[in-house]
């Protein structure tokens, strides 16, 4: 818990560092306009803060509703459906959002009075909410399960009203768990690139990321680009120092039947919960259904199956995603086994070091690939291996974030036991960690594989004819006049990502 004057101190440090880093920007020479750069930075912050606020508020409500209504029809399916926006390529999501909310979209066609103009800040907010609410909800839902059962018993005993339940039971948990989630979503919104480029309608709605991309790829002004990247890094690092890191408290998991047996929720709360779930489902599912619907085109599908380039793309995508998933999981598990398994060597700063891996999020794949290329081009590493390495670095933060709490909790629970029995390393892994972590490892594998499957940045840079992947093929079709094939390829990509997730669903129910 952060005390009041501590918060003030952190806030003042934040302001000082911000002003100092803006002086740093003055080193940029030949920038078009200082006004332009200031405006870009201001807009980056504005859209990230707005998107983060809306996403977090909605996901708190949704996670709470899902947590309490865990016995509604199709609960497991809903949870899995929430994962779909995370694995779709951004360009597919943006196009499907345009198809629904755009000028010729469903919404504008049905309601003639309310015309939504999606191009501009509104569209960016809608797209960011669509992409981030599922992620935040999934993380928060897992955290809700860490509320000690005793608190719920007490609430039942004292017959607490819902408002007081929130104030005394749920809010303390949220206060601890929210800061990392807020920083993650803020960074995702801050560095989002495709969304801003397509839905932002002018340089007025440009962010730092667009400016960096433009400097590297179009003006070849590597110096200025690096200065902007460093600025973005400093901003990101601030978050890790300013926001307090979360502490892992409880190791009890609430059972699914708990609410059915022990907690009665009054009818009004029940109604609002279901309403929120339905609204969010409609918001998230309609673009996905739109993607699927526009992708069903058997004629194009047949012509795709005859195209050998398509099969090369499928082969390459599968190799890249499976390799990335496996190697990322193996590396992360090895790292965590070294750092998290010994309680006496626990250092408080390690939590922060783990969060550092999220710095990778600050440099999206396109920029990262560019820098990687400049540094390592002479060594002639084959393209596929380069793409795999970049994807591993991109997905490692997520995998670490999923596996680390579980491994830490298990260590806390069993440390004294296996120290006293003097259990050696391999048996420790086989008996204690593996059975409990299995589902989490498979989940993180599937997330890593799906994220690398949908990646467009690294492939754009290092791909060529021989290392074409499915998203690159889709992009190629978009840029030549084969626009009808794009929805079909998008659908195929979605199906591949979903099949990776199906692996986890099946394992969990076994």
């Amino acid at each position, binding site marked *: 818990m952060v005390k009041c004057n501590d918060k003030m101190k952190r806030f003042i440090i934040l302001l000082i560092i911000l002003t100092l880093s803006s002086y740093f920007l003055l080193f940029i020479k030949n920038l078009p306009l200082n006004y332009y750069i200031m405006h870009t930075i201001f807009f980056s912050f504005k859209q990230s803060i707005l998107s983060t606020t809306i996403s977090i508020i909605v996901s708190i409500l949704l996670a709470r509703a899902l947590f309490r209504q865990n016995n509604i029809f199709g609960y497991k399916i809903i949870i899995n459906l929430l994962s779909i926006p995370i694995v779709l390529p951004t360009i597919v999501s943006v196009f499907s959002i345009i198809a629904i909310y755009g000028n010729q979209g469903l919404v504008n066609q049905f309601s003639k009075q309310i015309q939504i103009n999606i191009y501009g800040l509104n569209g960016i907010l809608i797209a960011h909410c669509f992409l981030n609410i599922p992620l935040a909800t999934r993380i928060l839902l897992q955290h809700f399960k860490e509320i000690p059962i005793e608190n719920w018993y007490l609430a039942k005993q004292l017959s607490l009203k819902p408002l007081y339940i929130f104030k005394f039971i749920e809010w303390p948990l949220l206060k601890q768990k929210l800061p990392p989630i807020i920083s993650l979503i803020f960074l995702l919104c801050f560095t989002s690139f495709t969304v801003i480029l397509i839905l932002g309608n002018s340089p007025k709605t440009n962010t730092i990321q667009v400016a960096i991309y433009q400097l590297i790829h179009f003006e070849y002004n590597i110096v200025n680009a690096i200065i902007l990247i460093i600025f973005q890094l400093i901003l990101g690092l601030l978050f890790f120092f300013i926001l307090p890191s979360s502490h892992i408290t409880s190791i009890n998991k609430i059972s699914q039947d708990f609410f059915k047996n022990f907690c009665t929720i009054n009818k009004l709360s029940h109604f609002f919960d279901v309403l929120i779930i339905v609204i969010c489902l409609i918001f998230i599912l309609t673009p996905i259904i739109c993607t699927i619907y526009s992708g069903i085109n058997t004629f194009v599908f047949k012509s795709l199956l005859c195209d050998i380039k398509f099969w090369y793309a499928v082969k390459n995508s599968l190799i890249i995603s499976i390799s990335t998933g496996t190697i990322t999981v193996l590396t992360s598990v090895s790292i965590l086994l070294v750092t998290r398994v010994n309680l006496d060597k626990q250092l408080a700063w390690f939590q922060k070091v783990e969060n550092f891996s999220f710095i990778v999020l600050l440099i999206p794949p396109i920029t990262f690939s560019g820098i990687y290329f400049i540094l390592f081009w002479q060594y002639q590493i084959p393209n596929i291996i380069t793409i795999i390495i970049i994807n591993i670095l991109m997905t490692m933060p997520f995998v670490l974030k999923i596996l680390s709490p579980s491994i830490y909790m298990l260590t806390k629970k069993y440390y004294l036991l296996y120290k006293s029995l003097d259990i050696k390393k391999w048996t420790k892994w086989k008996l204690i960690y593996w059975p409990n972590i299995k589902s989490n490892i498979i989940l993180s594998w599937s997330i890593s594989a799906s994220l690398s499957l949908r990646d467009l940045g690294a492939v754009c840079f290092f791909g060529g*004819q021989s290392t074409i992947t499915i998203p690159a093929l889709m992009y190629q079709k978009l840029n030549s006049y084969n626009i009808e094939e794009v929805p079909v390829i998008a659908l195929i990509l979605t199906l591949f990502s979903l099949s990776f997730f199906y692996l986890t669903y099946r394992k969990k129910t076994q």
Partner: protein
Amino acid sequence: MRLFVYVYINLILLSFSNLNCQNENHLNVYVHQYSALNKNNNIKKQFEKLNNCTLNCMSFDSSAALLSRIFLEGSKTKADIIIGIDANHIAKLKKINSFLDHNIKNVNLPITWKDKKFIPYSYAYLSFIFNKKLIDKYPKSMDELVNNNNYKIIIPDPRTSTLGLNFTLWIKKIYKDQSSHVWKKLKPKILTFTKGWGEAYGMFMKEEAPIVLSHSTSPAFHTYKKQNNFFSVNFPEGHYLQIRTAAILKSSANYELAYKFLDFITSKEYQKYIPHTNWIYPVIKLSNTPPSGFPTIEPKPLYFSSEYIHKNSPAIIHEWLNVMIK
């Protein structure tokens, strides 16, 4: 689980089987992915058979990506030939790398081609494409588009797309000093600036806006697909010319083969594929009538020299940025 491991190993082995046994005689070609060489495998095989060599083609998704790759690789580049460089970037490229003089004499361009090192192999006019379903009164000249038009336009961003950059040059060529006023007038009419031509055209096909910036020959593709509600109009002020060029790098290892390749690109065997694969004009006269579906009259060409663009394009873009930011 085991099945999974077997599948994985098989896929890896499959990937290694993809490696070609390289012929002694080979050319490394950096090509724009949009070009016919990349889209049609037969052309590549035809050249390889004719000259008993292998062509290693590396494709890039835009002229800018190709250029940035050459820039980043610098003098250690492995490319022998680059194809698909937009004529705007010639002066910039010449400063980075050195190229051989070509020996191609006759190309059929609307303007006289003076450069000795870069040879054009296709060209197109920038133009606006209109959707008949969504628009009833269409502008017949650039002045009308700027002043009287109420419909939204989709344009690629000049900073990330060559087409967008060419559009700013077009406005500059027509209006010279008044271009910032023109941008102010155009600003509310532009729906969005997209990253590249593909996204812009994709949105146009989804009927998000009735007007999009593309080439004057784009409706030919739609006529071919029997979609008859797209058309483009020739503006009397003229249309900007977008020229795609190719060149041989001085660091190439195989000059003879490279010259043969340049000859091949500007010959009938290659150029006959261009109209109906890329939907732009070839640089040799294939027949007396324009290719089927293409407009019968070519508009008036407008063009800046590449040295002028190299010197002034930062200023032109800053002017555009200045208006769009406020």
